[in-house]
């Protein structure tokens, strides 16, 4: 498989009024890879995706898909892209068959081929026996499966998954991951936005971490992890009044720490076990009341905290919407 760039985003900026939802993003997705876009709510993930899909016009910058300018060739681009969003949008009042047939028609699949495709899609989704049942009666997992085959009905080259597993239970989430991997093995390029670091870790070949509309880092998972530093991450939670004492103790053992509220975090580069024990003894000696102390290898979580200065936020309502509303009122 030729590893050419399937998607190329260059200096993309998208403003809503005064608000810069996407601030100069450049990235490229290679053909056949699973590319993750990771970021908290309101980071600009969905806005970026919407520009790629042609739903939004970029304020500046360009998006090319398979060497075609996304906004100059909307018809061809749209045939190449499939989208599955975080809200399940199968129509509950329609049967599984009608749902699929409708989208096959919307995508201008040749009339004669529609029944064949719908049948195959239902088989892929393991919903053949539910073809004529209203989708509204399906379980969450079934709906998501139907949604996935629906977004593939036009046989796209690129599948964009916008937080595909949000709200799914663990079993269904793992099943969906398997399906995503299967599709990828068939040669479909996949772009995945997610808030779940675990999901990005499990699926993505490469990923970009974005926050406040900017790319903070881009690379393979191990490349990103190594950015945090070698060695182990030490995390101590103490009373807020004692964080400086804890910080001093870390320094004594050659660990540069940083404080976030009541959390002291440092990176132990040498002899992790020994240093950990020494620090833990010293804390006890100085009678610092430790609520929790732990050490682990860097995770994407740590990468994230290091790069964005915060844990994944889970605010109610994305600020993407808030930004749009602002833009709306501004007129």
């Amino acid at each position, binding site marked *: 498989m030729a590893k050419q760039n399937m998607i190329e985003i260059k200096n993309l900026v998208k403003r809503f009024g005064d608000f810069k939802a996407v601030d100069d993003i450049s990235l490229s997705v290679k053909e056949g890879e699973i590319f993750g876009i990771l970021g908290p709510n309101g980071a600009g993930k969905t*806005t970026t995706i*919407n520009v790629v*899909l*042609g*739903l*939004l*016009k970029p304020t500046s910058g360009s998006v090319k898909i398979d060497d075609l300018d996304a906004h100059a060739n*909307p*018809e061809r681009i*749209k*045939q190449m*892209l499939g*989208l599955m*969003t975080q*809200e399940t*949008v199968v*129509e509950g*009042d*329609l049967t599984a068959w*009608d749902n699929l047939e*409708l*989208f096959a*028609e*919307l*995508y*201008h699949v040749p009339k004669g081929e529609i029944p064949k495709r719908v049948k195959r899609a239902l088989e892929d989704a393991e919903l053949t026996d539910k073809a004529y049942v*209203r989708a509204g009666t399906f379980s969450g997992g079934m709906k998501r499966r139907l949604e996935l085959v629906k977004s593939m009905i*036009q046989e796209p080259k690129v599948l964009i998954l916008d937080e595909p597993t949000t709200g799914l239970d663990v079993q269904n989430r793992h099943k969906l991951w398997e399906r995503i991997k299967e599709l990828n093995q068939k040669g479909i390029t996949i772009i995945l936005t997610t808030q779940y670091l675990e999901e990005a870790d499990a699926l993505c070949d490469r990923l970009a971490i974005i926050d406040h509309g900017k790319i903070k880092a881009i690379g393979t998972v191990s490349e990103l992890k190594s950015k945090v530093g070698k060695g182990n991450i030490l995390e101590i939670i103490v009373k807020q009044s004692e964080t400086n004492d804890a910080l001093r103790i870390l320094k004594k053992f050659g660990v540069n720490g940083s404080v976030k509220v009541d959390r002291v975090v440092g990176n132990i580069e040498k002899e992790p076990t020994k240093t950990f024990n020494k620090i833990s003894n010293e804390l006890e000696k100085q009678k610092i009341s430790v609520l929790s102390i732990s050490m682990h290898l860097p995770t994407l979580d740590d990468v994230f905290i290091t790069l964005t200065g915060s844990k994944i936020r889970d605010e109610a309502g994305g600020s993407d919407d808030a930004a*749009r509303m602002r*833009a*709306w009122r501004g007129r």
Partner: protein
Amino acid sequence: MSLVQDTLVIYKREMLLFRSNLRTNIIRSIMFPLVFIVFLGNLGNTPSNIPVAIVNLAGNVQSQQFISALSQQNALSVKAITTQQQAINMLDSDQVNVVIIILPQFNGQVQNAPTIDVYYLNQQLSLGNSLQFITSTAQKFNSQVSSVQQKAYLPGAAAGSAQISFTPTYGTSSSYRDFLTGSVVVMVAVFGATFGGGMSIIMDRQLGNLKAFLITPINKNAIVFGKLLYGATTAVLYSMFALLIGLAFGVTVAMGIAGLLWIIPIVILTSFGFTGLTIVLASRINRIEVYTIAAQAISMPIWFISGAFFPTSSMPGWLQAVSAVDPLTYATNGVRDVIINGSYPLGAAAFNIFVQLAFIGIMVYLGMRMFRGTIEEGK
């Protein structure tokens, strides 16, 4: 692919959704005309026990049967009076609303000559439809009716005057129900538009279906046109329900079956215009609650002013001016001509249709423009 094909796909989708909620949709569409035509249709129409004084100058079997036929109805409360003067005095002093004089020749043998005189005060509300009732009962006795309005009454001029004649407030038709049915038939098209056009766009937007449509290569205007077609289909369906309810409760279409050939296009045009209007609303409003209030705040006055409940001619001058710019006025006038007047002069039809087409043109153009505007913003 062409706009037409895309439009038909969206239309098909809307109809599938309509079908899957068929029962709710039908119940909803029947409730409104049922309430208006059946209940409100009685307004000013059949007050029961209207006091009537009868003077029987014939005194034969037929006249007795005629009186008992009148008495059997709740509509009239019949009193037998001996002299004409006494009865007229009762009318003067408001003891009765109608006086019937059965003339001596009342025996079913003298044709084409008045055999009954009817005196009444020309006050629509106090008469209800008692006059039609008296006329129709008299006709069963093969008898002619002359009538005299009390105010115009001169003793000598009574007999031999023309047939019963009165001008009810609600057009030439006899019944307020007929009058109301005409406007309900049009109004359900407007209500169909508020549910089918704007509201479905807001729902699609909220549920994410709109985004799903927009990432497909369909022509964006197809979404608007699909909703317009859907709105028109349901509007015709709802209007036919309303008309059937009216027919079931005694309303007649003066133009007969041919009237349908007028009513259906009028309803379709109404639906197009108002669906366009609701799409404009839906392009500016994101919440169903706000939309519902806005749609009602607009459609209710439009309805009242269109002469739905009372003829525009009975409105104060300034309101008549407002009703002249109300697009629904022209639809209502058309349907009313068909149902009540029994003829729809081509000149009036052409003018009404022209106004409706202008309204459609403006609304659909604005709807398309503003709908596209919201898409560009990524809604």
